[in-house]
C-alpha cells in the first residue's frame, strides 16, 4: 500500500480538512448538550465558528515582556495538531499519509504542541499562566505512561502501531469485540477525558482561574492568537474522538469509492463522533471536578486497566 494515486491523496486531504473544519462544530454540540442537561438553553451549535471569526477580526495585545516563544506558540500548536489530522482515517479505511507515521507520531505531535504551550504559559511570567503550566506538566507526566500502555494494548491486539493497520484489523473483527480491547477502551476513554481537559480533570468553563488548567495557560492570548489556540484545542479533541471511534467502533468505511458512498461514510462518521461527544458531555454533567491530587487515581485506573489488557493478550 505504498503507492497511491493523486486521487487518493486528494481524498486523504479531504479527510484531514473534514477533521479540521468540523472540529468547532463538535465543540458547539458538546456545549449545547451540556447546557441542555443543566436546564439551560445554551448557544447554538455554530457558536464556536462565530467566536473564531470574531476573534480573527480583533486586535491582539502582546506583553512587551514576552519573547518569541509567546508569539510563535499558537502557530506551532495549530500546525502540529493540523498535521496530526492527516493520519486519521475518516471515511476511508486507511489514510494515504499513513506511510509517513503511526499513532506514536500523532502522540509526539501532540506532545510537541503541548510543550510549547507550557513554555508560553511560563514565558509571560503571569502567575496564573505559570500555575496552569505546572499543572499541565503534572497531568501530562501522569497521562503519558497510561496513553502508551493503552497504545501498546491496541497495537498488540491489532498487530502494529500504524493507524491504517489498526483500523483495518479492527474493522475485520466481529461485532463482539476482543475482550482485551474492552480494557483498552476504558483506559482510552479516561485518557481522552484527561487530554481534552474534560470535567473530572479540568474545568474549562469557570472564571475561577484557580480551578482551570488548560484555560489558564492560554489566558494571556487575545485576538488571532487566541483563535488559533482555541481552534487547535478543538482539532485535538476531534482527532482523539475520531481515533476512539475508528479503533473501537469501526464498520462505517467505504469499500468502493463513489460519491454516494463517501457522503454516506462522512454522515455516519459525523453521527458517531457526535454521539460520542454527547456521551462525554453527559458524563461531564454527572461529575464534579476532582481535587487535583485525586486525579492521579483516575490515571491509575487507566494504567491498571491497560495492564490487564496486556495480560489478556498473553493468555
Amino acid at each position, binding site marked *: 500500500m505504498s503507492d497511491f494515486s493523486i486521487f487518493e491523496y486528494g481524498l486523504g486531504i479531504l479527510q484531514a480538512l473534514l477533521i479540521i473544519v468540523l472540529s468547532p462544530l463538535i465543540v458547539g454540540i458538546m456545549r449545547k448538550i451540556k447546557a441542555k442537561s443543566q436546564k439551560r438553553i445554551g448557544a447554538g451549535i455554530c457558536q464556536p465558528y462565530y467566536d473564531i471569526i470574531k476573534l480573527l477580526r480583533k486586535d491582539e495585545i502582546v506583553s512587551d515582556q514576552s519573547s518569541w516563544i509567546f508569539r510563535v506558540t499558537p502557530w506551532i500548536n495549530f500546525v502540529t495538531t493540523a498535521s496530526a489530522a492527516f493520519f486519521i482515517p475518516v471515511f476511508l479505511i486507511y489514510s494515504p499519509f499513513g506511510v509517513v507515521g503511526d499513532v506514536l507520531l500523532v502522540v509526539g505531535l501532540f506532545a510537541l504542541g503541548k510543550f510549547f504551550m507550557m513554555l508560553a504559559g511560563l514565558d509571560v511570567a503571569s502567575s496564573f499562566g505559570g500555575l496552569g503550566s505546572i499543572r499541565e506538566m503534572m497531568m501530562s507526566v501522569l497521562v503519558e505512561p497510561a496513553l502508551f500502555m493503552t497504545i501498546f494494548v491496541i497495537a498488540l491486539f491489532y498487530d502494529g502501531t500504524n493507524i491504517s493497520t489498526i483500523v483495518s484489523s479492527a474493522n475485520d473483527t466481529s461485532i463482539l469485540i476482543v*475482550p482485551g480491547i474492552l480494557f483498552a477502551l476504558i483506559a482510552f476513554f479516561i485518557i481522552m477525558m484527561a487530554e481534552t481537559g474534560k470535567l473530572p480533570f479540568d474545568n474549562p468553563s469557570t472564571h475561577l482561574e484557580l480551578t482551570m488548567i488548560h484555560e489558564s495557560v492560554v489566558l494571556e492570548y487575545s485576538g488571532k492568537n487566541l483563535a488559533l489556540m482555541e481552534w487547535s484545542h478543538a482539532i485535538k479533541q476531534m482527532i482523539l474522538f475520531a481515533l476512539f471511534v475508528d479503533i473501537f467502533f469501526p464498520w462505517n468505511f467505504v469499500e468502493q469509492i463513489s460519491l454516494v458512498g463517501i457522503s454516506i461514510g462522512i454522515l455516519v462518521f459525523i453521527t458517531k463522533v457526535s454521539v460520542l461527544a454527547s456521551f462525554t458531555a453527559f458524563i461531564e454533567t454527572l461529575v464534579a471536578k476532582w481535587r487535583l491530587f485525586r486525579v492521579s487515581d483516575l490515571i491509575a*485506573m487507566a494504567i*491498571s486497566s491497560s495492564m490487564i489488557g496486556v495480560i489478556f493478550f498473553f493468555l
Partner: protein
Amino acid sequence: MSDLILPTQIDLLHVSAVILLIATFGIVVRRGFSDWLHAYRYQTIILAGVVTLIAFVTSIWELYIVSALTLGIKAIIIPKVLFYVTKKLDSPIKLEMNPYVSLRISVIASALLVAMSYFMALQLPISSDKTISVFLPVSFSLFFIGLFIIISRRKALNQIVGLLTIENGLFLFAVVVTHGFSLIIEIGLMADILVGVIISSILLFRMSHTFDSVDIKNLESLRDD
C-alpha cells in the same frame, strides 16, 4: 458437553468475564459507604448474568435456579440489609478517609493480583474445559481482590463487602468447576451468607455504639476491666 460450545459462545463467555472483572474494580475504587454497596450490587447482578450464561452454554437447568437465587438474595436482600445498617449507623463520617493502602495503589495492586491469578490458573492442569479456563482465573482474582479489600481498609462495613466479594469468587469457582452443587446445598449456602451478613451488621451496630465509629483499629486495643 464441552465439545458443543460454539466459538461465538466462547467469545460471549470471555466478554462476560471481562465485564465481571471491571465490576469488581468498581468496589476497589469507591470511597463512600453506599458506593461500595452499589458496586457490590452491580457485581452480583453481573455474576447472576454470568451464571445464566454458563447455564445456557452447558445447558444445565439447575443453574438457572441458582442464578435466580443469587439475584434475589445477594443482589436485593443483602444490599437492602446493609443499606439499612448504613442509614441507622450514627457514624459521622461515611467515607473511607485514610485506608491503610491508598486508593490508587490499591487499584494497581488489584491489577497485579488479577495478573497473578491468571498465571496461577495457567499452572493448574485442569483447564481442559473451556468454561473452566475462562472463569477459573476470574474467580481467583475475585477471591484475591476481596482479601485485599479486607486487609487494606479501615472501616468495618468495607470488610463485610470484601468478605462478600470473596464469597462471590468462591461461588463462581464452585459453579464453574462442578457445574453447580445440588440445589439443596446451594440454598443452604445462600441462607448461610444471609445469616452471616445479619450477624456482622449486628456487630457493626455494637461497634458504632461502643466506639462511636466503625474503624476496625478500635478493635485492636484490649482493656481489662
